[in-house]
Every structure is written in C-alpha cells, then in structure tokens.
C-alpha cells in the first residue's frame, strides 16, 4: 500500500510499504477513505520529537471502511463505515473507566520511555512518534486499529467523510478545550491560535454558552475564519494583546484563556527571541510565550485551558501570576471517545458544519506538498484532507 512516511525534519515521502496485518485479537484493519494533516503533525515535521524514526507512517486523523477484524471484535462488522479516535484506548483500565481515554494505561507499549520523563505515560497515539507507542498512522491506504471494539465509531448513513472525519481529533480537541474553560453564562473566552483546533474551540465555546470569544492570531485568513465563527479578533502583530484584552473586558480580563498553539509559539520581541534561542541550543524544548501571555491576561480566579501540545520543559513560567490570581489550569490530550456521541449529534442536528475548516483537498501522493504549505501557511492553507 501507499503510506506517508517520515524520513527526517521537513522530509516526508509517500512510499510503498506492506499492508498492515491483524496482530492482536482486538485489532481491525481499515481501508482509509479520508485522512487529514493535523497541526500537531507539524511538530513532527519540524523535527521537535526525538523519538521519530525514519520510515514511521504518519497520521492520526483518519476514517474509512472496516475490511478485516480480529477474532475478539464482535461489535463491528466488515464493511462498517467508521471514524477512528486518535487516542488508542483499551476501554477497561482505571482511566478508560473514568472516560479519560487519552490516559489509557494499556495502549502504549513504549510507556517506559515516557515514564522516565513524565512519571507516567498517556495512551498510545496513532502515527505520533515512539514516545506514544510507535503505532503506524492513518495517512495511508490501510491502517491497523488496536482495541477496535473500543476504537471504532460507526458513522450513520447520510453523512459525508468531510462532515465526520474531524471527529477523530480536532473537533473533540477544540470542544474539550472549550469544556476545560468551565464556561459560565456571560463568560468571555480568549483563544490564542486560530488554527483548526482554535477554530473548533471558538465554535465549541459558543455551543457551551460563552457570551464572547476573542481570538488571537496573525494570519489574516485564519482571523477571518475566526470572525466568521462569531469571534472578535486580535492580530498580535498589530496590537499589544494583553492591553487589548483588558480594555475589551472592562479591565477585568477574560474569564477563561486558551493556549491553542503549544510548544512552537511565535513570540514577539526579546522574549520570543529568548525562547527561540533557548530551544535551538536545547536549553528549552518548548516555547511557551502564548502560555505566559494567557496566564497574565486571565482574570483573577479564571481558568487556563491548554489544548496546545507540549512535550518537554518550558522556561520562565509566570507562576507568581498563576498562584496569586488563583487560576486553574486544565489540559491533556483529548479524551476523544467521551465526546463522539455528543459531537456527532451536533453535526447531525446542523449545529455545526465541520467542513468549514477545510482549505485543501489532495491525494495521498501530494502529502509532501501539503505538509510544506501547511507549515508555511502558504496558499491560505488551514486544513488539508487527503484522499487515499
């Protein structure tokens, strides 16, 4: 089959590789019909994850048709049309029992790597480095899905791939990030990052009852899309965001703030230079300037939601502001399984049309070009769907 393989920093190749096989009784094989490139794939593309290996198959947003089932999978049929949550979850451990599926105890065979750094390991993830299991990803013609009896979600007839493929990651990720804002009636939520997750977070915040959403980015088409979603917008290259947020909220600050950017944030001025330099010499793995700004901007007693991906250490965290203002931080990889029913209902009820975010459709062969324009934000690229 054809698959999108990582061959090094900024080096993606479409290769012919063996078809996946059933390896465990609870596995399934999916013929992939749609798969997307995620903003977090860019962290791998940009070489920020040292546990990538040459030849790794990328992709964690994919859906398709079941073509083969392991002997223990009884609740899915061959031919079913399914979406696949990007988090791999066993469905029966302490964390899965509490609907914390991205914290599954049993799906990361390389948990030891993570435990050394983080103390404990989150779940395995598709196509997302050996730190999270080294599972072959879904940017391919076929993909193996472990714990398929838990990890496949059937899609009812009458919905297109493009309406449901984002249930695999970015829609639930934006939704959980908004839920993590602990929104109360009348609340204002400020969201840094108008990439695909930020876009879904804006719309989810409104679905969850936010009164206002203020979206922060610097890319014109992304800010426009945020505006189309009902947000007020701030371009951080044109305006001092902290001051603006304070003025826009009567001096009090946003009730909740969200870092939908993560470890590769583009900082301004000396601070941004500091983080870039520290990261280059390996003194700091993640650049946290959005997180710093968000914490300082947040109103007293407010909530900091962090869907943006971090993998290592950050420097100069404004812990004084965080503590003295009595803030709460909520974060995590997305517990995708928990949100699937709710979000599918929202799509079916017409409360949201997830296709709004798609800017490009390509064949699998064009993936290298796709990664490049997505990274460079060229050609107004916001979200790419690949059709194997």
């Amino acid at each position: 089959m054809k698959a999108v393989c990582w061959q090094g920093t900024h080096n993606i190749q479409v290769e012919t590789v063996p078809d996946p096989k059933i390896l465990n009784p609870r596995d399934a094989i999916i013929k992939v019909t749609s798969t997307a490139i995620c903003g977090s794939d860019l962290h791998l593309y940009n070489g920020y994850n040292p546990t990538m290996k040459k030849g790794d198959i990328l992709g964690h947003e994919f859906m398709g048709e079941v073509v083969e089932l392991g002997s223990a999978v009884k609740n899915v049929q061959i031919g079913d049309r399914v979406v696949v949550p990007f988090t791999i979850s066993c469905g029966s451990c302490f964390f899965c029992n509490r609907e914390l599926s991205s914290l599954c105890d049993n799906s990361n065979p390389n948990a030891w790597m993570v435990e050394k750094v983080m103390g404990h390991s989150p779940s395995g993830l598709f196509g997302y480095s050996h730190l999270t299991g080294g599972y072959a990803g879904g940017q391919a013609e076929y993909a193996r899905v472990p714990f398929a009896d838990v990890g496949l979600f059937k899609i009812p007839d009458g919905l297109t791939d493009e309406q449901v493929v984002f249930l695999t990651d970015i829609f639930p990720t934006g939704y959980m990030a908004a839920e993590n804002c602990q929104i109360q009636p009348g609340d204002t939520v400020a969201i840094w990052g108008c990439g695909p997750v930020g876009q879904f977070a804006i719309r989810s915040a409104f679905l969850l009852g936010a009164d206002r959403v203020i979206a922060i980015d610097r890319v014109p088409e992304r800010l426009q899309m945020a505006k189309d979603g009902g947000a007020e917008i701030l371009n951080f290259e044109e305006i001092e965001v902290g001051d603006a947020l304070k003025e826009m909220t009567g001096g009090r600050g946003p009730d909740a703030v969200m870092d939908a950017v993560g470890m590769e944030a583009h900082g301004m001025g000396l601070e941004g230079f500091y983080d870039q330099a520290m990261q280059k010499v390996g003194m700091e793995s993640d650049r946290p300037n959005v997180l710093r700004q968000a914490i300082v901007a947040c109103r007293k007693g407010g909530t900091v939601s962090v869907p943006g991906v971090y993998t290592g250490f950050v420097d100069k965290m404004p812990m004084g502001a965080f503590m003295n203002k009595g803030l709460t931080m909520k974060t995590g990889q997305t517990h995708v399984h928990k949100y699937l029913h709710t979000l599918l209902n929202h799509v079916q009820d017409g409360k949201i049309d997830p296709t709004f975010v798609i800017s490009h459709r390509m064949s699998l062969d064009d993936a290298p070009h796709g990664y490049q324009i997505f990274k460079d934000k060229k050609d107004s690229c916001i979200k790419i769907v690949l059709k194997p």
Partner: protein
Amino acid sequence: MELQSNSTTDPKNNQPENLSDTERWGSLLTGSALVLTGLSQRSLRGVLLAIAGGGLAYHGAAGQKSLQDTVTEAAGLNQRIRVEKTVTIQNKSPEELYRVWRDFENLPTFMRHLKSVTVLDDRRSHWVANAPLGASVEWDAEIITDQENQLIAWASVAGADVDNSGFVRFQSARADRGTEVKVVIEYSPPGGGLTAAIAKLFGEEPEQQIGDDLSRFKMLMETGEIATTEGQPTGHH
C-alpha cells in the same frame, strides 16, 4: 510505580538477622508496609527463608559463610541487584491474578526474557531465559512460601546460572480500586560480578525489564492482550 535497585558490598549481609529488618520485611510481605525503600541490604532470600520459618536449607543462604562466600565478599563480587515494582489491575480479584501467576508456565507470555518455565512438581520448576547470541541461562526454582490468593515467594536452588529470589504479592487496593500486584526480585550472581551475569540475563536495565513485564501482565489481565506494534508496516529506514 516505585522501584529500588541497588548493589552493595555490605559485609553484614550474612550476619545474624536484624530483628527490626525482618519485621519490616515481614510487613512488606503481608502488605502492611508499602515500599521497600530504606530496608537494609540483607539478602531477600535470607529474609524469605526466615519468614518461612527457615525450614528449607539453601546453599549459602542462611547458614555459615563458606570459604567461597568470604572470598567473594572480599573481592567485592557479591553485589546484588534488587528490583521492586507495583501495578494496580482493575476488575480482577487477587484470587484471579494469583491463579494466573501461580501457574508459572504462564509467565513467559508477559515476561519477555523468559523462554520457558516448566513446572516439575508442586514446589519446583525449571526456568530458561534468553541470553544474547541465542544462548540461554537456566535454573531450578523452589517455592518458599505460597499463601493462596496473596503471596508467592520463590528462590533458585543450588547450581543456578544466576542466583535469584523474589516474591509477588496480590492485595486488594484501598477503596475498591482494583488489585495491587507487587513484585520484588533480587539477583545475586555468585562470584561472577554484577554486570556480567545480570547483563547476560537482562541487558543493561533489569528494573526496566521487570517493570515492562509487569505492565504487560496488567495489559493481559485488563484487556486480554498485550499491546504491540511488532509486525506493522514501516517505510524504509
């Protein structure tokens, strides 16, 4: 998970038992103490035997120091490595987990370095472990203590390639939160030096391997299978 691994050349190892240590080991075995940390470096084997009532005699374990032991100590070759690991397993009782473990022939399913375990009789078993270059190390083990549904303690008998002893304890977690499984294993390469014999069996990191073994046991018990990517496709390396 917590772990403690250590090596020592403490000459007091074979001296008469220190009562308080024995008591503390005893509480670890019965579950009233949670962690190994802080316990002295007396040999696990000696403690297990003491707790079992000392009814079984093993070469070099509890009795007088032999000339070889003395030489070994003097040369600093009596280093041990001791590993402690605990996992909590959901939806399985101590009884169920004990039953799986008590049939030692099940162990190679999740203990990757084991090639086979053959049960010889109710107390004795023969263990074969993989070593580099297709070689293997072998030993006979004997059960020292077998408390049904709670605890199994074992030790290798004389002539083992790698002298080892250990126990596994199954205990209901507090507040009905599953079953805690604690494994403590100690390797005492006789006169061969730590690195040579242990590395032969485990590579560089025995703690890691035993931790992984226990994680795989948990996977198998909680999900019915062991998560893997071995055999999946990949592009060119």
